[in-house]
């Protein structure tokens, strides 16, 4: 009986509480709804299968985000591998290279913020989303990524500048970017 299974009850609670934030994170990370949905599906499958081993220090929420990040890195690895294979195949078949979509076309497909995020370096995008979507503080982000706090702040500053440019806003000089010698 589902009602009698404490793991099932816990799992359902996680879905109701954390799935929206996880989906937002996945979508902002991957940029495509179907990829985000797949990532979330994989995340919760793994969470369900390993529900007994959930001992993450940050609790279930942090654990689920950790799984999601891992699934995304697997997705990126697989995608790169497929792209390389496809590239080789195309060269062998002597087909002309497929025309890359123009930036304006991409903007038409996605919302402006998502288009701006797509321009970010993946590590910078991930750091930005950990703070603004996952809700971690800069220090928590640094601890999770195992990088210095200065690197986190530098990445965030870089992300802000890129987003300002991409979104067509006037780029204010970030107070944190002024000093020289910041660790990146």
């Amino acid at each position, binding site marked *: 009986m*589902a009602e009698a299974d404490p*793991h*099932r009850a816990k*799992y*359902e609670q996680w*879905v*109701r509480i954390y*799935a*929206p934030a996880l*989906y*937002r994170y996945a*979508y*902002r990370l991957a940029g495509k*709804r179907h990829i985000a*949905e797949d990532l*979330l*599906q994989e995340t*919760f*499958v793994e969470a*369900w*299968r*390993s*529900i*007994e*081993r959930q001992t993450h220090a940050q609790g279930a929420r942090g654990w689920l985000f950790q799984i999601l990040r891992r699934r995304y890195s697997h997705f990126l690895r697989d995608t790169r591998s497929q792209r390389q294979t496809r590239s080789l195949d195309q060269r062998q078949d002597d087909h002309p290279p497929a025309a890359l979509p123009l930036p304006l076309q991409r903007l038409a497909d996605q919302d402006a*913020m998502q288009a701006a995020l797509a321009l970010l370096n993946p590590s910078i995008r991930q750091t*930005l*989303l950990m*703070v*603004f*979507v996952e*809700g971690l*503080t*800069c*220090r928590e982000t640094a601890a999770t990524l195992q990088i210095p*706090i*200065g690197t986190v*702040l530098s990445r*965030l*500053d870089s992300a*802000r500048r890129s*987003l*300002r440019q991409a979104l067509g806003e006037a780029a*204010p*000089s*970030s*107070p*944190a970017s*002024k*000093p020289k*010698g*910041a660790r990146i």
Partner: protein
Amino acid sequence: MTGWNGESELAELAHLPVGHPARTELVTRIGRMDPIGQERWRRMLRETDLLYQQLGEVEIPIELEERLLQIPATRPRRQGGLERMLTRPMAWTALAACLLIAVGILAYLEWPRTVAPPPLATLDPVLAEKIAALAVQHCQGQASLEISSSDAGKVRAVLASEHLPVSVTVSPPRETLMLRGGGTCEFGPARAAYTSWQAAGLNFTLFQFNGASLCVPEKFLTTTAIPAALGAKGIHYHVVIWPGHGQEGDWAMVLENDAALSAFMARNCR
């Protein structure tokens, strides 16, 4: 204005969402800055709020939650170590075997052990010789029976009236023996009852006494002693000693017989 560390700290705080306690502290600190510094940090805070708002604006698919809730029904959960072990039939057998072994070890270590009695030995030869000597001395020195009767009940009644420290039995040691009579006598430090029996022309004397006074152990194997030193004219007595059947250590019996020379028996024990 603060240095890099101060800037870094402010930048860190400037990424916090509205409502965070530390952000309230940041706003207070910004209020104490010069107008240019205030403007810079306030713009950053506005940008922070905008990022929280815009990055969070993602439409959640309606059926997503329902789809995720279906996962437990379609995907088997990876079981934990113990649970996985307990759901395997072989594991149950192994567990049962382990339990049995554990119970066996515990039983071996903790179970109150019944101490095996030491193997019975015959009576100490010195003690046996002493008892045999007392029996033979009595037989050699006895002129007549105190009670001459073949009636076991009568003999038993007389002996019981003596209140000896032993419950006297008057029943033939062998079925073929015929009772001649009995009496009481001093048997070393103990008082004894004796009964005399006859079979095929041979006399047998049965002494009954409390063995404790002679340090006779509670249990021992039937012991035969032949006190040669007391033999007269080559007559050797065979004294058979065995524990009584009353309470343990209560008494001991001595059967004296001389299967070789009935003449001596007739002369001395009659």
